[in-house]
């Protein structure tokens, strides 16, 4: 934030701004120099902010009608669906909003992986992002428990039971988490409390995430450092605002399709059966966005090691800036990394698929191979690639051609502009 010499025009504005520099902040946000070659993959930050606010607003409204009690939760959800004015709309936006949130966050994360946005000097932005992602998973999991359907109850049972894998104190921790000797009313009420709390923690972290972003500025598809402001940048308003707005509207069309025409397709039918501790569903599966990690968990035969593998799969991302040894950020100039990147995408999709399948036979074998590859990618391929890979020449700026007119810039720009 180097633009602190801003002075409001009006006297009142100056008086206020001297005491609380909100107008300086607003000016910084509108003038914020943004690389002009950002493609549509960069619009998901704004989309995610929209998702968070949507979840908070619909969630607050639902909380006014929802009753966090094991005997009444399911009924209160039906009350919302039937008798609350537009309750069905608010609940379907909230339930599908969670899926949309994760869809957007996965695209956001994979964009960062492709263009090397996590690398120096943006490590803190990346780590804050991983913490946000972890909190999102916690919030989504607890939110799924609240309707108190069969999958809520048994999902909660399975996931909380993971803590029993911890040696010596595991059982004690599980009892402490449950607030009793099984998932029951105390579990529901504390999950509701935490589900209400976490989004506001996320909101705070999002502010830090954006703050940390505004120190070095955005990465860009070419992945080079640029002078700001310069011919390579445009002010955030109106250029990026309208572009983010356009992308957000496209996203909202997909969102609206799910809410209005397929509101239950992403959920599990069993969650419309009220929780019954005496009846276990045939298959206990988490929501789709947790399936890759569920596959990793089940691919390890030992319970404790399975939990360790699942947690490592997420936490390994936090040290990614130091695992990736390549000096070049963007995959556009890393021909080998680009291929491994798409293999990783396929690997995660395969993990998601087998996570939804019963853990037996061929599915289990595939899950194990895919899990091994996942760790191989981060622990072996990425560190080695930085030393071995022959990267392509990188341009010196976004607008100016490379010294001697490298053909790769043309290729790179061409590739990026194809997106629309």
């Amino acid at each position: 934030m180097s633009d602190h010499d801003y002075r409001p025009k009006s006297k009142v504005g100056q008086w206020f701004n001297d005491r609380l520099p909100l107008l300086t902040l607003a000016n910084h946000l509108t003038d914020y120099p943004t690389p002009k070659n950002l493609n549509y993959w960069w619009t998901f930050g704004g989309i995610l902010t929209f998702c968070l606010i949507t979840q908070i607003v619909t969630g607050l409204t639902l909380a006014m009608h929802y009753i966090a009690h094991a005997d009444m939760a399911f009924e209160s959800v039906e009350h919302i669906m039937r008798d609350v004015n537009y309750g069905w709309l608010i609940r379907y936006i909230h339930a599908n909003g969670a899926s949309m949130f994760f869809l957007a966050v996965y695209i956001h994360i994979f964009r960062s992986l492709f263009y090397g946005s996590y690398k120096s000097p943006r490590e803190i932005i990346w780590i804050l992002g991983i913490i946000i992602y972890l909190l999102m998973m916690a919030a989504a999991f607890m939110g799924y428990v609240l309707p108190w359907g069969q999958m809520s109850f048994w999902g909660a049972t399975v996931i909380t039971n993971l803590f029993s894998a911890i040696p010596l104190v595991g059982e004690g921790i599980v009892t402490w988490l449950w607030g009793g000797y099984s998932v029951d009313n105390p579990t529901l009420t504390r999950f509701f409390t935490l589900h209400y709390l976490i989004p506001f923690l996320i909101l705070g972290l999002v502010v830090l995430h954006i703050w940390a972003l505004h120190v070095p500025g955005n990465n860009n598809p070419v992945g080079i450092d640029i002078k700001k402001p310069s011919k390579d940048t445009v002010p955030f308003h109106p250029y990026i605002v309208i572009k983010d707005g356009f992308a957000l509207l496209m996203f909202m069309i997909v969102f609206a399709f799910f809410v209005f025409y397929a509101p239950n397709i992403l959920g599990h039918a069993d969650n419309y059966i009220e929780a019954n501790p005496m009846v276990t569903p045939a298959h206990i599966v988490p929501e789709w966005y947790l399936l890759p990690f569920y596959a990793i968990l089940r691919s390890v035969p030992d319970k404790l090691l399975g939990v360790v593998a699942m947690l490592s799969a997420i936490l390994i991302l936090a040290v990614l800036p130091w695992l990736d040894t390549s000096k070049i950020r963007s995959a556009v100039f890393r021909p080998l990394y680009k291929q491994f990147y798409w293999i990783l995408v396929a690997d995660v999709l395969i993990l998601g698929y087998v996570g939804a399948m019963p853990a037996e036979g061929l599915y289990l074998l595939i899950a194990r191979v895919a899990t091994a590859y996942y760790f191989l990618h981060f622990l072996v391929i990425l560190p080695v690639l930085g030393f071995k890979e022959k990267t392509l020449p990188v341009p010196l700026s976004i607008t100016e051609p490379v010294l001697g007119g490298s053909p790769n810039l043309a290729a790179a720009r061409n590739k990026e502009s194809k997106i629309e």
Partner: protein
Amino acid sequence: MKNLFKLFSIIIVIIASNSYCFAAEKVEYLKTDWSFKGLFGKFDRASLQRGYQVYTEVCASCHSMKYLSYRNLAEQGGPEFSEAQAKAIAASFEVIDGPNSDGEMFTRPGKLSDKFVMPYDNVKAAQAANGGAYPPDMSVLVKARGGGVDYIYSLLQGYEEAPSNVSLDDGVYYNKYMYGNKIRMAAPLSDGLVEYGDGTNASVEQMSKDVTTFLMWSAEPHLEARHQMGFKAIVYLIILTVLVYFSMKKIWSRIESEV
């Protein structure tokens, strides 16, 4: 464009893998033309009214529908009985109310605001009367089964003689669409079981369709409102998106960069 294509294929793979996993044990369900599917899907009012008749004359003797009230029968987007008809339906049920000023519980005729009267006092009573099996509440039954309406519609017509290699206990029936093929409910429908007021032939197929339509409505009472609003919302979003697209083009034309 290539990247957008990639994005959409990823979305489709995710959705397909998710829905596919519940289809693993699926047999081919019987199909029929549901009026409530599609962009403008609406309920067939007459079918809903017939479906209510099947529910109340056949299903309701064992299956509760505890989240519905009699007033719902007269509400927009449902069977749309007239208010007088709904009142008459409600009044035909005995409701336990109280305690009165003497501290006694008493029965009175049902009112529009009453929930559907339950066939049994509690789960234990229901199990005792049904050989240990609990007839599930039907309010959201369609949404609580993987195959949805097609599953329910098929199940009602899926009773047949058990193959010779399957042995059935007393009070267990063979149904080719049921998970595991064994069901504790005897075939509930037979041709001409109810007499439709509008003269429709009460075949098993017709009754299955009507009662399944009714169950779809009971699970999603605001389905019609949802479809109508959804169409408006999406048309609105598309128009706005187009306008914003051209505004964006105009704004970005000030600098020599593509957007």
